């Protein structure tokens, strides 16, 4: 893991509903490559958001993961940005 690298992930509800497993599937290989992963989830109710990220909590995750409601955008400098699914 690169100690300084940060990843930004954008998740949109409508796309997520088409492929609910896509979020964790796409993020899983990235978990070892970044120190911090910030996920912005757009259009999710709070309960849906927690349910969507539940599979992450079963994985042996070494990165710090911070998940925001999409409405609460926090602008920071990231090394990479991806949109999933």
């Amino acid at each position, binding site marked *: 893991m690169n100690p300084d690298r940060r990843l930004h992930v954008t998740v949109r509800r409508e796309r997520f509903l088409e492929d609910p497993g896509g979020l964790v599937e796409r993020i899983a290989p990235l978990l070892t490559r970044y120190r911090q992963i910030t996920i912005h989830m757009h259009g999710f109710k709070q309960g849906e958001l927690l349910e969507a990220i539940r599979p992450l909590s079963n994985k042996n995750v*070494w990165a710090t993961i911070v998940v925001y409601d999409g409405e*609460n955008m926090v602008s920071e400098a990231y090394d990479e940005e991806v949109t999933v699914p």
Partner: protein
Amino acid sequence: MVDERFDVVLSVDRTLMTNHHGKEFLGFLATGPPVMVPEKIWMAVAAPRMRVDDLGRPLEAPYGLRKIEAALLDAGIKAAVIDPDYLGKHLKNAKVLGIGHHDYFALGPPSSEWWVLTGREPVNSKCFRKFMEKPEVRMAKKNGLKIIVGGPAAWQWLWMPDYAEKWGVDTVVEGEAEKIIVSLVQDALEGKPLPRYVHVGIQDTPVLNEIPVIKNASVNGLVEIMRGCPRGCRFCSVTLRPLRQYPLEMVEKELRVNKACGLDRCLLHAEDILLYGADGVKPRPEPLIRLHQTARQFFKVVGWSHVSLSAVKYAEENYSLITRLSEIILQDEHDYIGVEVGIETGSPRLAEKIMPAKAAPYPAGSWPSIVKDAFSIMHESRVVPAATIIIGMPDEKADDLVKTLELIEELKDFRSLIIPMYFVPMGVLKNGEWYRAKPNGEQLEVMKACLKHDLRWIKDLSNWYFNKTNPFVKISLKTVIFLVERVAKGFRLLS
């Protein structure tokens, strides 16, 4: 009452904001539903109210909340742990309510097992629900209070997302929070958006000098001496954390805090006390003797949280160390020291599969004989293990349970309690009726064997354990033991 305002209030429901009458083992009762007595009496025995100061701050509080309080105070943030009965006044002014819990929704062991066996909701989750629905909490939430939840059971919010939404939980923090809590709370105080969820990764997990020293007393004088565990058992999350050992000076500082707050006992806490200062998984005498001598300088009563059975065997066989440590701790020939240990299984096959390093430095295949040797050593040294056995593990076969039954039988002459833990796989929790799952025949036989073993020893132990306890607790528990014994005899468990 004195008027002082706190920006951050830390609290939890009564099942954790209690010292269990100074008897940690009574905490097990707070994870179950009332058995054979009314709930009020059950709660009064398991989780009595705590002594508080003029502001409603408890004299003792859960160690995890004390660590978060210390991190916030060190950062100059006005924070305090407040007893759940005194929240009203403080939540009118507070901007953040922080909650830490071992089992918010009774989904973890042993609560889940109580739930499966009795079909009734344990008191811990009932109490927590009442806590979240207190009018003062609801009112403060309406007025903009931010609620941050964490602790070892933080994962449960991901399985109960509707409650997070219903109660307006702003952020769930999973992992050790001392390093990240300050910036999170500062954001809340400044009105910045909070994340819904934070998983604390390895680089944000505090290293030793980032772990604050508690500022106020912990429940029953608990002080941590190490964090993490090197054994890597498949069913345990502690093993994912890096191993950190507190220097003796740091342990001493926390002992001093508890002493200064008027406590008369301490409880040394680690996943394996005997690995303090160890050479890998091989205990060494010098650091352990110094640790115990230091603790005894402050307190007459020194307790242990957990030890591993392989470390007990290695320490005694190589250095007579269990004998030496018990001589430091025990006050007289009538005294015992209680400690939690994990047997988990009597099956060498399962031991090799799910906990290959638990037996180290001995081979995992010799696990049953390690357990017997360790129990024998502890019996001689007046150390009383409260041992867990896990049933229902994935890959468990009928033959594994037979091996466990045989081991329990071989332990019958050693002073101990054996507690079966019914493993509830996370996947099952998706089903709202998960607690209606029933143990199979062999699993029930193991549970009965544990009950038989415990009833054999519990009378002998209760005379020691409840010595100097208030008469109400003593009478209530002796009544419950008597009733359980009658029922067990009725079912011919004790023939």
